[in-house]
């Protein structure tokens, strides 16, 4: 695993997230559930806890956009880049953007599974860089995994716990 060089980690354990808009590929409930479960992947192994807010600025702002979406890192249309996220810092830090020119899916291998893409991006939101381990969630290329049996790979657990420590409730 790898972490961003510098002190890129949240100084608090209670973080907020807000879903600013939705993809037309999935129902609102499916997007909500995918995002919630993607954050829970990280909460399960750390002291981090996530609360959803519906207005105002959250630590992790989540949105779907296409091409130039005004953050200086334009998307490239279908395939190629699927999403990106910023490491922890005030403002844009922590925010996750998904390329809405992709086709996202809920529980099928068709399209790009939003839960898997989001879980990867939230790794960046919390301070992880890309891993060189091809089996890691934080490996940069997309690989479909069975989401019913998904468990956060050891490399990712080690990475996130190097920043925040283990879950005290387990």
């Amino acid at each position: 695993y790898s972490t961003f060089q510098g002190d890129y980690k949240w100084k608090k354990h209670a973080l907020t997230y807000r879903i600013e808009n939705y993809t037309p590929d999935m129902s609102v409930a499916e997007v909500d559930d995918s995002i919630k479960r993607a954050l829970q992947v990280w909460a399960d192994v750390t002291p981090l806890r996530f609360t959803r807010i519906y207005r105002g600025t959250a630590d992790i702002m989540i949105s779907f956009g296409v091409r130039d979406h005004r953050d200086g890192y334009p998307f490239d249309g279908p395939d190629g880049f699927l999403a990106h996220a910023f490491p922890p810092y005030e403002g844009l830090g922590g925010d996750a953007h998904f390329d809405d020119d992709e086709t996202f899916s809920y529980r099928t291998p068709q399209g790009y599974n939003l839960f898997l893409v989001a879980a990867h991006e939230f790794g960046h939101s919390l301070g992880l860089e890309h891993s060189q381990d091809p089996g890691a969630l934080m490996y940069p290329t997309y690989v479909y995994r069975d989401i019913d049996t998904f468990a956060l790979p050891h490399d990712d657990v080690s990475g996130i716990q190097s920043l925040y420590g283990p879950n005290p409730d387990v």
Partner: protein
Amino acid sequence: SPIAPPAGEDRESIAENYLTQLYGLPKQASFDAEKRVMSGMSLRLKEMQQFFRLKITGKLDEETLDVMKKPRCGVPDVAA
């Protein structure tokens, strides 16, 4: 009908875009800069090949190009 660009040109374009976005390759400013960019591209290709544990040649081979074409996260692989 329109003439398709040579395959080699398309490959270079894919590689240049990939390395510019993810490995900090400076955008080619002019024709005069081409040699410098090609040198920079070779270094960035080596970085990328090292990251993905490919054969480190600094050249755009098929294996490297295949990795570049895979769907992926848009965050750079190296500290930027």
